[in-house]
């Protein structure tokens, strides 16, 4: 009796392995997700930015109530006169930084959510607290659903979602294209509305790409010949133009496939229609009940048989 059960056991192991291998195979021939260029986004042109940080203060002014954002004090400022965040944080959704290579080589850069076309954070959120608005394309967070597991932070390749570590009632904070504030009232994000130099352009992804390509064509010497976000991780709605190399500005060099496609493919292959778990359960039930019956007969024999059980162990 030991033999068939072992064979079945190995079969199950094999099936699990095969399912996983199949998962890999399928990924290669995946149906690629559709990029929707009618969704909203922003084009940040680092060569036009003067680093005035008006976007940062506009963002906090408009969104502070909605995201329970507070002002961040700096060490040099004991009177608390300025809001001086060092990085994106549980109180800051957008940030301007200066990268200085030499006195002649420097650039500002603006950080905020990239609003991916296939966002990892949305793919991993177990309770749908992070969602991508089908029409606007904005990746939106709902604190009333969020359980605070921070899987979105693990998943985001840009390290955008931030958690309020110092609060007893914390939440995730990230740019949501002013979905519940400025976009709702004025149809434009607060940062793009405020920017005095036109470094932040707000619009549909199609228009933004066209504008970026136009700028690259008109001033080829002024830019890196690359629109950051056009293809990165399956495309983002927040696009960048810059003179300096993007990775020097803290924008990582990334592949063109969305990580969420790969992970979802594996998860879906294993759990497609819940067939595999049900099949596993029924097979195991069949084996276990058969074994139990067999054992019942053995038990009726005089005691001591169980001690010999050791002999029909592994060969």
């Amino acid at each position, binding site marked *: 009796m030991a033999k068939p059960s072992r064979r079945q*056991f190995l079969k199950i192991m094999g099936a699990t392995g095969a399912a996983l291998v199949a998962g890999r195979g399928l990924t290669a021939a995946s149906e690629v997700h559709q990029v929707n260029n009618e969704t909203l986004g922003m084009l940040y042109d680092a060569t036009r930015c003067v680093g005035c940080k008006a976007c940062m203060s506009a963002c906090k002014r408009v969104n502070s109530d909605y995201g329970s954002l507070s002002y961040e004090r700096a060490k040099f400022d004991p009177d608390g006169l300025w809001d001086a965040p060092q990085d994106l944080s549980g109180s800051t959704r957008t940030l301007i930084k200066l990268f200085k290579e030499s006195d002649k080589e420097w650039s500002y850069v603006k950080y905020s959510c990239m609003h991916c076309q296939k966002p990892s954070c949305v793919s991993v959120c177990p*309770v*749908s607290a992070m969602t991508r608005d089908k029409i606007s394309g904005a990746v939106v967070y709902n604190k009333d659903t969020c359980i605070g597991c*921070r899987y979105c932070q693990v998943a985001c*390749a840009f390290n955008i979602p931030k958690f309020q570590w110092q609060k*007893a009632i914390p939440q995730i904070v990230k740019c949501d294209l002013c979905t519940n504030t400025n976009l709702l009232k004025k149809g434009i994000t607060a940062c793009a509305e405020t920017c005095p130099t036109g470094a932040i352009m707000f619009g549909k992804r199609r228009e933004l790409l066209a504008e970026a390509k136009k700028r690259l064509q008109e001033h080829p010497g002024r830019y890196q010949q690359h629109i950051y976000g056009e293809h990165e991780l399956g495309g983002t709605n927040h696009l960048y133009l810059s003179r300096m190399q993007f990775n020097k500005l803290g924008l*990582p060099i990334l592949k063109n496939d969305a990580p969420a496609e790969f992970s979802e493919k594996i*998860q879906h292959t294993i759990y497609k229609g819940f067939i595999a778990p049900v099949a596993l359960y029924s097979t195991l039930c069949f084996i276990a009940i058969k074994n139990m019956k067999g054992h019942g007969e053995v038990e009726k024999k005089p005691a001591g048989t169980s001690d010999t*059980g050791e002999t029909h*162990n592994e060969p």
Partner: protein
Amino acid sequence: MSHDEYQRHDAKILTPSFITLLILTLIGFGLIAVRFIKGIGAVSNMNDGYPWGIWITYDVATGTAIACGGYAMAILIYIRNRMHYHPMIRSAILTSMFGYGLAGFSVMVDVGRPWNAYNFFIPSKWQANSAMFEVALCVMAYTVVLLLEFLPAVLTTLERTEWRTLQLCMDRLHHYTGINRPERLDERLEAVKDLGAWLKPRLDKALIFIIVLGITLPTMHQSSLGSLLLIASTKLHPLWYTGFLPLLFLINCMYIGYSIAILESVISSYAFKRPFETKELSGMARIIPWLTVIWLSVVVGDLAWRGQLPAAVSFDFYSRFFLLEFCLVAGGSLLMFSGKKRESIRWLFVSAVLIVLGGALYRFNVYLIGFNPGQGWHYFPALAELLITVGIVAFEILGYQMIVKILPVLPKLHTRQQLDAKHGLAEKA
């Protein structure tokens, strides 16, 4: 499968180790209170780059693997039909129950907005793309299954109980307060007993289906614990980032499960001064090297396929941790391949320890050590953070110690020699 296979361990509950564990537990739970009042940042070094720290890495990812003794034993007994291991399953299930229950509890400490956890039960919020969703539901379901699997131990005790401790407490309480005892108390206690007696045969009939569910669920969520990191393609080091993560985690939890079952048996035999179950353990130890060989081949084959073998032997920070993990698992398995070493409790113990350490280090490597969110981020657990984990583990051991002394959990010593051996040990002690 009679319940006479198990017995209660007759010993005092209040021992020095009990008090030490109790103090550690209290410190841990005190710090948990601080976490809920002042926020996670007050006790933990977790940050936006390393949003998962030691609580998820140890208590959840590694803790549930260590709690896979019950899973591994159930496969061995019910699927591979080795019924003679049956007496060992109850203690394995008890440790699994504590492991999983407390992993769930740790999650509630770790998540920022636990009051929203009810969303897991609201279909419109379900997110089947998320490995976390699958892990959460499976772990919850499995904890319930473990409770049901353990219920027979409670019911058998209930059958025979005379409520002596309860009566004693009641007597004292009513003596101090001067209130009369409620008249119908005995009647009600009798009703509880009747309910237990009614439930027991029905539970026994359904138990096999629950047990098989207890095999299916860990197969699902242990592989999903690996899937959790599939999304972190840019952050997890290529030595560990592979599409085979789910398979590797599944096999990993199996060999950890058998090894931990061996360790539990050896340690509890030693601590409770019972004879060692050498024969059963060496039989069980035969399976482990086969599992580890499969696991190690998948690891090496996958690295070779992805062209990462040079990185594995480059002796940089990541390579060292990888090699350590690899050598611990391989070393332990080599020892277990030898039939002679398997007969010795000492070698069994050593090799099982090596394999558990190696397997656990693999999970640490995937969740923490090989995880790099980018420049400028650092994480090492804070003291308070560690003490919370220590407190939870202490509580686990404390509960195990107490329950084996209250309920029939440990395998019954039936033969004359075993009883004699126990007497001998007791006298020596």
